[in-house]
């Protein structure tokens, strides 16, 4: 057997725990009340277009993109706007959101094709595709929620060569992308074709880790009908889903420090985003729902749900047969990069890929001990940094030195802290350091 491709530097191998991999995607019932946060994308939050008492249809534009890196927001439900007010988001902050009283009977905005029929022919041209994606509020569904239309606008003088599609799903537990690849494979491939047309690239590579052989086989079979798309199995290694790591693994190019993938002729997009692009361009359907995994060792029925944005986490947990008694931590996302949330009222947003319930005994960190200079963090770091040193610099406020030691290259994957035998909160310090160094860099401009 030929050695599987992967990225070379660093990485760890956490327990995979893909316990929900065989649960088909189910539609989740609607909540009574939805909370739709205005800041669901990287960049500026959207500006609300509705006010208290307004009736909204499903798919209606309710908040508009403000600024360059921004995205439109559409109503995920039919109903009445209760208020525009602050609500706790998954970071624990109170941020503005639109509260909608959900009406049982659904009324879609006009012009949206809600049928299951697959439309294969791509009629839209390059500009029409980008406009449509912008209109429909598509953002990267891998978690970073970068507005997709911005990504498709290649800066002058640069040329995209490869479209790389992220089907890695290297986070333990999460299976939403896996299920999507199995159940919406055809839509996904058409979505990739649309993205290829918009980017004017000939080659697209779908990177999938080898722990999803069914997805690899299924898509390889389908991809025979789609010229230019190849499926690339990858060795299981975290954080392969990191943009830079995935580019290294698939086309063996290194994105220079501080630069974007386009520097090496690549554009990376998530499999979920490809499906959303398909729906936007072929069916005129805005991004109002996504697949969310609900999982955890104590969860009675680990599941994958098709969830409308704005649905409270509570409802997903109920659909997975309830919150286990010994739940100690609720994570929005995977165990490596997800955020612990404070309340079950937190709504699902465009970037939520999973809800992970951890048992009490799993939810606490080990007691930090002294650094024994074992260099395991340095070996695990996929960016070739020295986490122990950067953490120390952040602790001692040596921000200038941390900058020269490339703290801003940190992708916050958590491999260092995962591997640290002394249980040191390395990533906490690194985040603090990145925050401060970022401020310093911005203040120079």
């Amino acid at each position, binding site marked *: 057997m030929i050695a599987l491709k992967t990225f070379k530097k660093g990485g760890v191998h956490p327990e995979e725990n893909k316990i929900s991999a065989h649960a088909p995607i189910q539609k989740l019932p609607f909540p009574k009340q939805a909370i739709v946060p205005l800041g669901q994308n990287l960049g500026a939050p959207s500006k609300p277009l509705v006010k208290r008492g307004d009736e909204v249809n499903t798919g209606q534009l309710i908040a508009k993109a403000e600024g360059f890196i921004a995205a439109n927001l559409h109503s995920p439900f039919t109903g009445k706007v209760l208020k525009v007010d602050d609500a706790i988001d998954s970071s624990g902050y109170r941020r503005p959101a639109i509260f909608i009283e959900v009406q049982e009977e659904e009324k879609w905005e006009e012009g949206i094709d809600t049928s299951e029929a697959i439309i294969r022919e791509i009629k839209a041209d390059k500009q029409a595709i980008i406009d449509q994606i912008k209109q429909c509020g598509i953002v990267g569904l891998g978690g970073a929620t970068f507005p997709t239309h911005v990504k498709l606008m290649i800066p002058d003088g640069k040329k995209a060569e490869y479209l790389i599609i992220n089907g890695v799903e290297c986070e333990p537990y999460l299976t939403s992308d896996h299920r999507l690849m199995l159940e919406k494979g055809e839509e996904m491939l058409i979505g990739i074709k649309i993205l290829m047309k918009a980017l004017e690239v000939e080659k697209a590579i779908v990177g999938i880790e080898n722990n999803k052989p069914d997805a690899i086989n299924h898509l390889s079979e389908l991809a025979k009908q789609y010229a230019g798309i190849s499926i690339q199995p990858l060795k299981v290694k975290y954080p392969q889903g990191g943009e830079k790591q995935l580019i290294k693994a698939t086309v063996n190019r290194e994105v220079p420090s501080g630069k974007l993938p386009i520097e090496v002729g690549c554009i990376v997009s998530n499999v979920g985003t490809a499906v959303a692009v398909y729906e936007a361009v072929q069916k005129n359907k805005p991004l109002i729902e996504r697949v969310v995994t609900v999982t955890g060792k104590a969860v009675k029925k680990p599941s994958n749900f098709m969830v409308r944005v704005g649905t409270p986490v509570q409802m997903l947990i109920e659909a997975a047969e309830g919150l286990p008694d010994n739940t100690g931590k609720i994570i929005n996302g995977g165990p490596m990069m997800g955020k612990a949330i404070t309340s079950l009222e937190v709504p699902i947003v465009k970037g939520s890929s999973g809800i992970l319930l951890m048992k009490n005994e799993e939810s606490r960190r080990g007691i930090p001990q002294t650094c024994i200079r074992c260099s395991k963090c340095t070996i695990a770091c996929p960016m070739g940094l020295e986490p122990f040193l950067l953490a120390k610099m952040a602790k001692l406020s040596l921000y200038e030195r941390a900058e020269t030691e*490339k703290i801003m290259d940190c992708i916050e994957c958590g491999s260092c802290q995962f591997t640290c035998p002394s249980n040191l909160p390395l990533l906490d310090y690194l985040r603090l350091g990145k925050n401060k160094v970022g401020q310093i860099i911005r203040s120079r401009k």
Partner: protein
Amino acid sequence: MSQFTISGSPHVHGEESVKKIMYTVVLALVPAILVSTYFFGLDAVRVLLIAVISCLFFEWVIQKYLIKGPVTITDGSAVVAGLLLAFNVPANLPWWILVIGALVTIGIGKMSFGGLGKNPFNPALVGRVFMLISFPVQMTSWPVAKPIFAEGLTDAITGPTALGLLKEGLDAGKTVDQILADPSMPAYLDRLTGNMSGSLGEMSAIALIIGGLFMIWRKVIDWQVPVSIILTVFVFAGIFHLIDPTFYIDPTFHLFTGGLMLGAIYMATDMVSSPMNISGKWIYGIGIGLITIIIRMWGAYPEGISFAILIMNAFVPLINNSFKPKRFGLVANKK
């Protein structure tokens, strides 16, 4: 107030711990412990026990009564220091010297710098070199190895090490061939299995290599340090052997005698006092190899690896600052 734990990612841990690492090292030392017990019998057990217990005792006393901080003697680091200290002394060393050595190891080598993780020098080597300089006679009269099941020879017999014989012989103007023909020089196979005079842990290269492979497999040590030391010694000694075989012994002799394997596999690889980055590990290993062979060939002592490691330990901060890991995205891309 939320009933759920809130903390930053990552929310899972690889289950690696300081304790696990330390006891893996202990486990890796078991083959060598068995070999030394086989050759030196109860004397070996006595030395091992005294060293480990004294190291644990001094760490406990210092942490509890001098530092008045948390006592962490169960983390295994003092056990490792004790075992390595015992490995570096002859089996017939008087107990009180060993206790003083343990005090220096823990007190000066480790705790005076702030304890585990802070010491710039390998503590066991600090203790060993202290004893070597303070008690040169006791530290260099090695008992002759006497397998427990073999008959004949009594305990009292001591003899020089292979390296000692070589040095004495060369100083007396003999050629390498004449020295190797000396009946007290251990035969080639004995040098490999450890059937010769020497410190407790210097005996069997094979047992040490088995432990080393185990540690590399368990990712407790990196292969770069031992390999670079061994390669450097081999190449450097090999060059001189090729130039003048009557005066310079063949390089494999250097590899399997004295503390080279022990030093390269267990002492130089000490996490705390060795470089953090791969390129640095090579520089460090090559430095140790060179200094070792220079001391062995032209120095006053027959054996030089302890000094070599301590000298290179001192360079570690400099190495760490100068040899950084290869950053991602700082290499020119081939289009």
